[in-house]
């Protein structure tokens, strides 16, 4: 248990008098994901991390859509709603806008948030509602038993695509940046330390935070993220973004990212260009250009050059705060509404 962090996003959420532990966040429901599913690690990380927010448990809400990941709220001993396919961001928007005293989390998957719920996701992001969206990306449909998803690589052989899928995939981080997201991060289910760091930053962010979590479905798409997990190769593939630090990676930290003269970015050997040429990551940059360029670095098929960490984290007043301010301003200038005056209106006559 660490001290409560100063978090602008949670300033209106009541703090707990008691020290809570991970156990306090476990519900009495039996967890029914497949043995070996990456969801277990995420659930455990979330339950382990929440106590450090120091919030009253009853003021935390998890809202989900449909899919394997969306069973998540049942396992959290907080308030929770397992809603309908793709609509969790919309439902959570209504909740967050009307209840500033709640910490509202959305749990969704790549099918839920990027296929059927794509519209709600992008609009939640552009509005900057105070929501934390955890997008479990396993590049497959699990609950419907193994069809390709909008993040599946083209050519994916699945039950519904015996000759290979034809669609081009979404890149969730690029999509979120294009949708004006103020906080975009990516992490990995099996890297608990990194996952927790990202969750902590997301929780602190006022507005919509999108956290893409690379999650393994060991039944229908096992090993989808293996190049980023296998200890033999992962350091060669993973680019760990850290605000203010030079963007370097590789087994011996020998590679780095530079800007080219034509405005693009590319991977180089640090020795060849010199440390001073390496870009320093700036997650707080107003312009999302660098973040977007970083989101395009990875090879979607081989996963080489895959950045993880916080791509973007900028300050912008949240939608729900602006809504409240508008209401408060009207009440301050006009006083609280007079129902009788409203019904009477301006143009009346009397019958006597």
């Amino acid at each position, binding site marked *: 248990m660490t001290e409560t962090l100063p978090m602008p996003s949670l300033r209106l959420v009541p703090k707990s008098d008691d020290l809570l532990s991970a156990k306090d966040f476990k519900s009495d429901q039996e967890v029914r994901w497949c043995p070996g599913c990456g969801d277990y690690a995420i659930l455990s990380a979330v339950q382990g991390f929440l106590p450090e927010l120091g919030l009253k448990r009853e003021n935390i*809400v998890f809202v989900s859509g449909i899919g394997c990941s969306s069973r998540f709220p049942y396992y959290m001993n907080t308030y929770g709603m397992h809603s309908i396919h793709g609509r969790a961001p919309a439902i959570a928007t209504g909740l967050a806008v009307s209840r500033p005293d709640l910490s509202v989390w959305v749990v969704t998957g790549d099918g839920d948030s990027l296929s059927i719920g794509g519209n709600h996701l992008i609009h939640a992001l552009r509005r900057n509602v105070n929501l934390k969206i955890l997008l479990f990306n396993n590049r497959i449909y699990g609950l419907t038993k193994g069809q390709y998803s909008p993040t599946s690589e083209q050519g994916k052989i699945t039950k519904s695509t015996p000759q290979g899928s034809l669609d081009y995939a979404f890149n969730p981080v690029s999509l979120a940046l294009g949708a004006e997201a103020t906080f975009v991060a990516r992490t990995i289910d099996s890297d608990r330390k990194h996952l927790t760091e990202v969750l902590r930053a997301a929780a602190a962010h006022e507005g919509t935070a999108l956290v893409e979590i690379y999650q393994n479905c060991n039944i229908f798409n096992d090993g989808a993220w293996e190049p980023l997990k296998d200890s033999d190769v992962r350091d060669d593939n993973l680019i760990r973004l850290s605000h203010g630090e030079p963007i370097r990676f590789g087994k011996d930290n020998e590679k780095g990212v530079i800007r080219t003269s034509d405005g693009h970015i590319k991977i180089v050997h640090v020795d060849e260009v010199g440390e001073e040429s390496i870009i320093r990551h700036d997650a707080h940059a107003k312009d999302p250009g660098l973040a977007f360029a970083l989101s395009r670095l990875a090879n979607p098929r081989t996963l080489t050059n895959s950045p993880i960490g916080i791509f973007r984290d900028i300050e912008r007043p949240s939608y729900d705060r602006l809504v409240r301010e508008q209401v408060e301003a009207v009440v301050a200038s006009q006083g609280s509404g007079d129902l009788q005056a409203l019904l009477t209106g301006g143009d009346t006559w009397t019958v006597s």
Partner: protein
Amino acid sequence: MSKQVVQVNRVVIRFAGDSGDGMQLTGDRFTSETGGLGNDLSTLPDFPAEIRAPAGTVPGVSAFQLAFADHDITTPGDAPNVLVAMNPAALKANIRDLPRGADLIVNTDEFTKRALEKVGFTANPLEDGTLDPYNVHAVALTSQTVAALKSFDITKKEAERAKNMYALGLLSWLYSRGAEGTRRFLEKKFASKPEILAANLAAFEAGWSFGETTESFSVQYEIAPAHLPEGTYRNISGNPALAAGLIAASRVSGLPLFLGSYPITPASDILHELSKHKEFGVVTFQAEDEIAGVGAALGASYGGALGVTTTSGPGVALKSEAIGLAVSLELPLVIVDVQRGGPSTGLPTKTEQSDLLQAMFGRNGESPVPIIAPQSPSDCFFAAIEASRIAIEYRTPVILLSDGYLANGSEPWLIPDVSTLPTIDPDFATTTNHEAADGTKEFWPYLRDPETLARPWAVPGTPGLEHRIGGLEKADGIGSISYDADNHDRMVRLRQAKVEAIARSFGPLEVDDPSGEARVLVLGWGSTYGPIGAACEITRRTGALVAQAHLRHLNPFPSNLGEVLRAYDKVLVPEMNLGQLSLLLRAKYLVDVVGVNQVRGMPFKSTELVDAIIATIESL
């Protein structure tokens, strides 16, 4: 020159012109003055779906009809006594509704060869005798307006635009209406444009003086005030009344009002109206689509707000899955469907009652939803409170079925005293409600109230009552996920029984049968109340006997409905659809009701209902 003044007891006027001619505004102003004079009234705007259809074409005609009288009236009238036609298209579109001998005021300036050809007149109807059956007043409205305003520092176009005020002035003289309200209205509207204000007032005056001096009008009419109950009145149309009802429901329940909505005709005005009232703490959320509108409303309800979504039929189709979720979650939610012509995009600006079966059955699974329908524009206020009451007290989505006619039509409203409004108790759960075998205190989110069968509503932030709900079937009582077959059977029946239990919370259906000996009952719902009431009254004046009843609650029905239906030899059910209520009545009560159905996009004419009633009585 003094003219003969004739007392009449009821007048129906229709203003018709191009979409840009300001006919709705003219109608609204005339209505307002008329209300102020104590006449009872009823209005019917009729406008195209296009914002500005091509000028001078029939599809671009916008009309406003109002009836006013020295007695209680319930409809905007079947046929106008006076038609104001601002151009040939307006004449063409409306002349078939004008009875022989009625007054026809025509703006002759617009009857040019080109304008006539545009709508298919091969000869000028003002000259070829086709208008002989009518009492034609050919007035050069545009040029007379321009002439009256020549001293003003405005463009010719601006002067021409004031012709609707000239027409309003003329009609105001003709029916002895005042100018004060219109003056106040224009002063507000053109506060920043004093020259335009002065010009519009001058146009109004000129129109008035023209009426007084011209020989084209030999008589002036007076309509005495109606004998309405004492009190303070305003004129109100359905959408603002509905919005006010939602605000009132928020006040009497103590729940903040949250509207999640996506703009759609003819419901958008409710969103507009509510967005103006943040002083009541109202939050309006213009969502990215219909689904997000209802989703956000449901999310707000989950948090303890009065969640409302407003839409029309196509929007309800999109919201269906979320409404089903609300049925399963058992959370309050009000879905307002301002019905319009369907299917699909249909007739966006025309009225219809064809969403009853969608409201009743338009979801997957056994998914009962209470349904409420207002019967007149001002009744939208009370219907909104009643829908909110049921939603909150029974933890259920409720569909409120208004329609385009109620939304835009208007009538005088005896303004209620807010202290007389009912209170609504949200009765939030704050403590555990179950003790486990080992003595642990627990909260069971689906442990129902034995009387209402409503479940406890514990909102996030309530300590010790943390729980999870969702669209998966829940175990009776404890509320955790259950795939047990018998449990599902029980839960389906419980949800149905809960909705049926709502009938115990409102009174029986009242029947208006003055003689007590009628053998024919006319049963309606929603906006047909006005035409049915007028038709029954006319029928009774002929000496025939007929009973009338009107349903506010369409699901569940009032508990005595079966008894009422069986008490009559014949039951007529007029609906602006092909027989949706008839279908429900036949299915539930095995009574052979007779439908009277039309989907012309306009309310019933009382005469067509009179014909149906008389024919039925004579068939017995």
